[in-house]
């Protein structure tokens, strides 16, 4: 019996070209196009960075070493068409220095740099770049500055090779270690961390968000259309329990949403691949991709959280949609979901869990719909408390919603809809009245 209903739901949804297109084909196209756009813009910004480099960059060099090799590096940088300010004061606050003039970056050469190199130990250079604008180009600048130092490292290799044979070859090939850092506000992050976060922060919430909104509107439509097409009355008198009807509607929407999630993930994979290819071909360290950072386990958990969230949103969509009288009003009630879904998602996207006090983080974790994002953050930060809290909260909400939906299908309000006198009042009123 239930199977019959589910098959009908799925068939009915699939035959609707709009749904098929929106849920399954659109995500593929979106990601395909996005992949191309991102890889093209990346290529373009790499080009821009190259141009910026060739017309000269303004850098500050903090030289604590003040010796042979640090001087060699500075000379090299000057030859590379850059404007260099050398800062020789005692203790330098890099953040303040970077903000003081319009430096693109600050290089810090620590004490013992030259001594290390002459002894055959890698000399390290710290690179700091300020990030004010969230764009791929700004990461490109960081890479350009790092690229300069790497260029010097190659140059140094050639000198070392022609001068000596006693130093270990691995050192000679790689005499300098560059530590890339990104400053956001007053906080210093490592470049590789930021690059990995970047793509995730941009893309990962977007994927479930699209699926979630679709799932909600599909579920809402599935009840709205029964009212609009006047099929609900017959459906409700068939010899099946009302719970089965509600369950079939949910399962139908979830099956569609699942197909959409899979398609989204496939599209997302292609997207990641195309941007990873671009960044590796430009020899930068932006190449760190999500899979590398969160691993396969993380990806699976991420996919599961997407699915869980989709279930919650479908149920909510079905519940809210049942207050509408037709497809359009069902959809418009679901429109309110954007508020509830987007704001928490957006907020949790920009709040850095590692820098926020624990109670606040836990409170944020309790907000439903953020599961996919919380999952990612947990895997990046390596702390799974948030994720557990979030999943427990989400499941609790799901149970509550399923209860509300089945209660709604049990009663007669689903059918009568509008309360007599208040005809034409806002849907919100009806929604609150139902409690």
């Amino acid at each position, binding site marked *: 019996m239930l199977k*019959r209903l589910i098959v009908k739901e799925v068939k*009915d949804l699939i035959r609707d070209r709009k749904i098929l297109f929106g849920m399954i084909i659109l995500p593929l196209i979106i990601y395909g196009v996005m992949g191309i756009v991102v890889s093209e813009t990346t290529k373009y910004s790499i080009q821009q960075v190259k141009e910026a480099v060739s017309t000269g960059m303004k850098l500050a060099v903090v030289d604590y070493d003040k010796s042979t090799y640090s001087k060699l590096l500075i000379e090299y940088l000057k030859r590379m068409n850059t404007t260099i300010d050398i800062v020789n004061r005692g203790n330098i606050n890099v953040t303040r220095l970077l903000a003081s003039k319009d430096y693109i970056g600050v290089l810090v050469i620590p004490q013992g740099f030259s001594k290390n190199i002459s002894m055959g130990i890698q000399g390290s250079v710290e690179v700091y770049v300020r990030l004010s604008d969230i764009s791929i180009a700004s990461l490109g600048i960081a890479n350009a500055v790092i690229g300069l130092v790497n260029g010097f490292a190659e140059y140094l290799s050639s000198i070392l090779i022609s001068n000596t044979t006693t130093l270990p070859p691995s050192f000679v090939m790689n005499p300098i270690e560059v530590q890339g850092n990104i400053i956001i506000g007053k906080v210093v992050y490592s470049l590789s961390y930021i690059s990995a976060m970047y793509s995730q922060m941009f893309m990962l919430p977007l994927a479930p968000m699209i699926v979630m909104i679709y799932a909600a509107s599909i579920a809402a439509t599935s009840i709205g259309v029964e009212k609009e*097409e006047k099929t609900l009355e*017959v459906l409700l008198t068939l010899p099946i329990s009302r719970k089965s009807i509600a369950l079939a509607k949910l399962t139908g929407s979830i099956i569609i949403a699942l197909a959409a999630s899979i398609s989204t993930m496939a599209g997302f994979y292609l997207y990641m691949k195309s941007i990873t290819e671009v960044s590796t071909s430009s020899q930068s360290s932006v190449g760190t991709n999500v899979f590398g950072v969160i691993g396969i386990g993380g990806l699976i958990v991420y996919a599961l959280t997407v699915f869980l969230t989709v279930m919650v949103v479908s149920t909510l969509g079905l519940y809210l949609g049942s207050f509408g009288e037709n497809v359009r009003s069902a959809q418009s009630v679901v429109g309110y979901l954007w508020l509830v879904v987007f704001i928490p998602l957006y907020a949790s996207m920009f709040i850095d869990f590692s820098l926020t006090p624990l109670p606040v983080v836990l409170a944020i974790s309790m907000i439903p719909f953020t599961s996919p994002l919380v999952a990612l953050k947990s895997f990046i930060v390596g702390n799974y408390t948030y994720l557990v809290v979030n999943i427990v909260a989400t499941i609790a909400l799901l149970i509550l919603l399923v209860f509300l939906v089945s209660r709604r299908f049990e009663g007669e309000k689903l*059918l009568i809809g509008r309360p007599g006198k208040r005809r034409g009042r806002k849907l919100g009123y009806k929604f609150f009245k139902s409690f």
Partner: protein
Amino acid sequence: MSNVVVLVDDLVKVYPGNIVAVNHLSFKVYEGEVYGLIGPNGAGKTTTLRIIATLLKPTSGKVIVAGYDVVKEAEKVRKLISYLPEEAGAYKNLTGLEYLEFIAGFYAENKRELEDMVEEAIRISGLGDKIYEKISTYSKGMKRRLLVARTLMVKPKLAILDEPTSGLDVVHAVHVRNIIKNYARSYGVTVLLSSHNMLEVEYLCDRIGIIHKGVLRLEGDPKKLLHEYNASNLEELFSKLVEEHAQETYS
């Protein structure tokens, strides 16, 4: 006396906004009988039928279908009834055939029975090859015929038909009426219907109940009622009653 299939006892239905749609209504429908509810627009016919069909809950009073309470044993009642709403649609993305198969699946015990039901429905609907086309391509009358067919094909213990022939042309209306009559005679299906068409009621119904403003005004065999009230047809009787009632409420 034969078995009571529908027992409506002191039924009251008040919609939100204090609209009294059914006002202390009582009547019985016996097994194998065709019972017609007639009354002017807004009399409370649809409301009464929806309550019997387990869709709405009575405000007070009780409704029993074949021994089961429509509120407390709604699921049992749903197994025995087949309801044709006044305004109904069908899943327009399905073909007529798929729709019939979908519905039959809930009632049929095996494949054979399902096929019989569907075959029967195709015959009742008179849709011919149109049955293989999507419902979205049907005219209003075709849709109505499909829905009448789906309601009757399952041979329920009680068929609840809210204005079964509304929107049908004369030929098809006659066809449907004959089928309803035949169903009651040959399969012992009890039929409870509402109608505005007095000819239909006179032809079809063993007994009628005339309701007005949610109150049962008159009940009985249509032919006897005509004789009793000295009216030449039901239309006349109906007008007489409604006028009478209007005068009562004035004075």
